Every structure is written in C-alpha cells, then in structure tokens.
C-alpha cells in the first residue's frame, strides 16, 4: 500500500523523496544533466535565449486528447517555439496532494516523457513538494523552459498593416475538451483536445525565408485574447472574417449549449501567426504538411484603425468588435 499513493513523507526531503525522484522522475526523463543532482543544472548557452514559465492546474487531470503532463510539456515548449526558439531545457516543479494515486503520477510522468521526445527538449532540473490532503487539487505542475532563439525578432509588437493573420487549426478544442471531461456535466462526444507540441511545425516554418512577424499559441483567453493583445501591442487594427475561422461541429455544439464563444475557448496546440500577406499561402503550404495543422487557414488581415481593436466581419456585411473575454472561465483549462 505504501507505494500505491503519495504520502507526505515523499516530500520530506529524506529517504522516501530520494526514492521517488530516482525511481520515477530520473528513469522517465533520463539525461546526464538531470542525474547530476546538484543545486542547479549546468547548461551551456550561447547568445539570444528565450525563457518562459507556466504552472498547470488543469481540472480534470486527464481529458480526451491528453493529460496535465502532456499539457505541461507542450505548453512551455510551445511558448518557446512561438518566440522562434528551439526548446532545449526544461525545469519541472511538482506539487502533489497527499494520497494522490501513484499510478496516475506514473501515467502523467510517462506522458511528459513521450511529449518531450517530440521536440528533443530535456528536463534537466526539478523539485517535488507534497502537501497535506485538501491543500491542493491532486497535482499541480510548473515547467520553465529555455531555448536558443533560432529566429530573432518575433514579437507581438511587430504586426504591420498588410499582414495576414493565420490560425494553424480549428479553434477552441482544448477548452471544450476540458469542459466535456468535467465531472457532473456528463457530456459525450468525439471531441479531443488540440493539445500538441508545435515545435516540429514551427521549426519547418523557420527554415523557410518567411518574414514572420509574430506567433502565439492561443491558450487561456483563446483567439480573442491573442488578437486583442496583438492589436494593442502593435497599435494596429486586426480584422477577421468570422466565416473563415475554423470551428469543429462539436465545439460549436458545446458553445450553443452553454453560451460560450469558440473564440474565447482555450487551445493548447493551435497558434496564430502574422506575416506579410504575400507570404501567407507559402506558410500555409508548409504548415499543412503537419497533421495537427492541416486545417491551417488565413482568417484575417492587419489594418490601421481603429488601432488596438479587433473587428469581426460577418458574411452578411456587418461588423462587431471581438472582445477580450472577462470574468471567470470555468473550468480550469491549464
């Protein structure tokens, strides 16, 4: 029974913790930097480097298309990729609630290890805390990543009138999948989260001579948040053809049922890109080679005014602002 679930002793800094770290984490993430077990990992970095952090508190921990482990790797790796950086090294902070099933922890760790393989990044340092029953909701993860910047200059501030806006796939699937998995809602559908590591696709984009201005994964706040942040940061207007924005039937169904907007729902493997309109088709052609980007499409353009705002065009010729979502977004999606 002692190995069936996490005990407070697993976080005590003593024997039991050492065992957990060696038998579980070291085995799954094996690499020689990690095994050094020093106060800090030793890296050799040269030049411009991206550095990003995210904590993961998603509920439930397992959902169609992934789990918190996959999410924690993909999320941080994607943030590096969005800055034109090759994901190289990750840290992992684990906060576990006493009584958490060891089998679930093993599944989550395995899922992290398998996601790491997709981009070649390594977990090189970590930290484990165990808190008493009731002091956390199962498991929280933090991943922080560093990576060499392959293509400098990508920035939310660099959008320019004349840019095309692309999305890499249909939107809202992660937020919808989490909602479907939520206890008490008892929904069923074939929907799976878009949760995925984007580095493969981004790496290919970066080897081409596209003058990409900005990329961003449309996580919390969804497409609305990315576009509004970009419009504000670059002081431009962004216009979107509502009919061009890809949304799956199931996400539409969920939005109908609960009054959500697909543009507000989170994504975890879908990103937005701005680059000169003339290069948009070329970029699409590259993106569509990747399974999870096969629905990539141009959804809009960058204009000048009203600066800082995002305009949605309906197919019947009317317009409205696309707003930043407000209020609590239930459930916890990351």
């Amino acid at each position: 029974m002692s190995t069936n679930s996490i005990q407070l002793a697993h976080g005590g800094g003593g024997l039991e913790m050492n065992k957990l770290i060696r038998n579980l984490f070291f085995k799954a993430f094996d690499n020689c930097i990690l095994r050094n077990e020093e106060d800090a990992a030793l890296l050799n970095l040269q030049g411009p480097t991206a550095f990003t952090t995210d904590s993961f508190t998603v509920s439930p921990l397992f959902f169609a298309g992934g789990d918190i482990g996959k999410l924690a790797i993909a999320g941080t790796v994607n943030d590096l990729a969005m800055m034109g950086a090759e994901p190289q090294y990750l840290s992992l902070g684990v906060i576990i609630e006493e009584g958490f099933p060891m089998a679930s922890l093993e599944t989550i760790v395995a899922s992290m290890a398998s996601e790491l393989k997709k981009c070649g990044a390594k977990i090189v340092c970590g930290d484990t805390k165990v808190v008493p029953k009731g002091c956390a909701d199962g498991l929280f993860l933090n991943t922080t990543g560093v990576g060499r910047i392959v293509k400098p200059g990508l920035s939310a501030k660099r959008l320019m009138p004349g840019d095309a806006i692309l999305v890499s796939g249909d939107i809202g699937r992660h937020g919808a999948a989490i909602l479907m998995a939520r206890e008490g809602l008892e929904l069923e559908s074939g929907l799976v989260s878009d949760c995925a590591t984007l580095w493969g696709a981004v790496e290919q984009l970066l080897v081409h001579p596209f003058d990409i201005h900005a990329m961003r994964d449309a996580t919390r706040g969804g497409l609305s948040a990315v576009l509004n942040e970009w419009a504000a940061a670059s002081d431009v207007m962004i216009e979107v053809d509502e009919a061009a924005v890809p949304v799956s039937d199931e996400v539409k169904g969920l939005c109908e049922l609960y009054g959500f907007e697909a543009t507000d729902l989170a994504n975890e493997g879908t990103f937005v890109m701005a680059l000169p309109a003339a290069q948009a088709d070329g970029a699409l052609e590259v993106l569509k080679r990747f399974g999870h980007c096969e629905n990539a499409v141009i959804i809009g353009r960058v204009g000048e005014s009203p600066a800082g705002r995002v305009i949605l065009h309906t197919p019947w010729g009317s317009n409205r602002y696309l707003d930043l979502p407000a209020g609590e977004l239930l459930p916890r999606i990351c």
Partner: protein
Amino acid sequence: MPNQAINEPDSSLKLKSLYEGFRDAGTIRALAARINSAAQNLSEPLYIMEVCGGHTHTIMKYGLLGLIPDNVKFIHGPGCPVCVMPKERIDQAIALAKMDDVILLTLGDMIRVPGSKGSLAQARASGADVRPLYDPLDALAIARDNPDKTVVFFAIGFETSTPMTAVLLQQAEHAALPNLLFHINHVLVPPAIDAVMAEPATKVNAFIGPAHVSVISGAKIYRRAADVHHTPVVVSGFEPVDVMESILRLVELKNLTESVVDVQYSRAVSEEGNLTAQALVDEYFEVRDSFRWRGLGPIPQSALKLKGKYAHRDAEIHFGGRLPVQEIDDHKACQCGDILRGLANPMDCKVFGRGCTPQTPLGSCMVSSEGACNAYYRYHGVQHVD
C-alpha cells in the same frame, strides 16, 4: 405547438439546418434589403424594444444594427433575469450562502452580479459555499449528499425557466429530501412590458417578443401589449434570420398600422404554449403582489412565489428573520430606467465607461452582456468601421 400531428418526420430537414439555415448570409442580406425598402414607407421612426436579453445578444453578436436603416431603432429591454435582480435579493442570497450550514445553488452568470456588498462569487471567495449549476436537477444529488446541510436553490429566470424549478421541487417532494429549499425570483415578461409602456414619454412603439418564454406560455401572453398599448408584437426566434424576419414583419405591420401579435418562431411557439409546464407552474407558484426590478423599480404582480402549501420549501419563510430586507436603490447617477424606456442613451449617463464598466457595473444595464450599457460599452462605434 402549432402542429402536433406531424407523424412523418420530413427526413430532408437536417438538425444542422436549424442552425445554418437560420444564419444564412444570403437570407440575412435579402431580409436586410427588404427591411430597408419597406422602412422607406414608415411614417415615423420605429422604436423596437427587444424585451429579452437573448435577442440583444443576437443583435450584437451578429452585428444586425449595421444592417437596418436609421429610422428603425432598437431599445434594449430589461435585459435578462440576472440583470433585473434587485440588490436586496442578491444580498439575501449572499446571507444564505454565508450561513455555515447552507449550500447555495444558482445558475451561471448570477454569481457575478453585485448586490450591495459584492457578488456571490466574492462571497464564495471568502468562504461561502456557492455552487453554480448548469442543470437545476443537479440540486437533488447535492441535497442527497449533504443531509446535514440546508441546500437552497436561488431560482431565477423568466417564464422559460420557472417550469424547471417546478420539476425540481416536485422531485424533491417525491424523493422526500427535506433539506432542499427554494429562494424564488422568477419574474414575468408581460408586467415588465406594461411598466415600460406606463411611462407616457416612452418611445417604444413595437416589440420583439421572447420566443422561449412563449414556448412555455404561448403567444397569448402578448395580446395585452397589442390590444392595450397598441404596439405590434412579433414573437421571434433567436437566430439572426429570425430576428431580421421579425424586424421586417414589424416594419410591415407598422406600415399597415396593425397592432397584432404575430408569431415568427412558429416552428416552436403556439398560441397556448406548453400546457404541461403551465400546469406544473400553477401547482407550485402564485403571483407576488409586487416585485422590485433593478432599473424599473417595483412592478405589481411581476413575479412569482411559492404557494402556501409549499411554505416548508420556502427559504424566505424558513430563514425569515435572518435575511436582510433593506431595499437597495440603484446608483443615483444610473439612468437605466430611462434607457429601458428609450428616453436616454447609455452615453448620456455621467458614469458610463468611467465608474460603470462591465467589470464594475453600477446599474443593471451594465451587468451582463445582454444589457444596453454593456453592449454600448463593448460595441459602440464599430458600425463606422470601413
């Protein structure tokens, strides 16, 4: 229902058509063209009030204001049951939620609406047991799982949602769950229409009637608006095509000076409505003498309460002395009342966009995305984009 005898389902109607067919761009454009053409014959501007926030939402989300001519104007109605809730009722919900042995249940957006000292969300943040539901019947399991607690369902909604509360109460009785009580805030649409029209200076001269209310209550409930207030009413669905068709019909009725009740949403609304639902509501509820609406003030016979024989389920009776009764007036600067009657515009309000924003609403019209001030705050000016 208009046609209860359909026994040969027409296989040519796909479910998806009920969405896509009623959002069709060509149809919307065609209806817009017809509206613009018909409106040229209007002898005076048409001031349409859409009573229901669901319609406000459709109008804003699909940008319909940009498609209609200048002499067809919208006055956004009392919004939604969430927005019209007076602060003292929210204060009562918060007082209940803060009691150690009480679990307070309510629907969706309600937890964000501020009472006189914060919202249910804030009460929850400071430790009160508040649980938002998507489905009222979930209250049964919560009551069953917490026999030591009193579970109070803070019931809100227009005629559309009242039958669901009735079913919940019925099931609680059947399952003999003594610990499930109700705080009833169900409000009625016709008295709100009367209140808007009671203002002599009101500009409203046409109504779009909430179809989901009529799915339950039938089209008959709008007779009085047509007969007494001499305003045409079109009972409209919530898709953009539904609303455009309803506008067209209102323009046409106005040109004909006909004050009738017309049912655009005939695929789901009948004259009589859902009789099963009405019977259930009659079993459990009776009309209150008066109810204060945020923005509109007290309106006689505008809300429901539990009948005396269900007093054992009535949280207002059970917790009688322990609930705050202080009536809280709207903010002095707030012009919602005038806005709801078409006498003022959100921009006329001194605190609009400054003290009063969707994150910090001072008046009811700013509370939810379905309120007039909220809609103006978020969308004003967009029509002028190239």
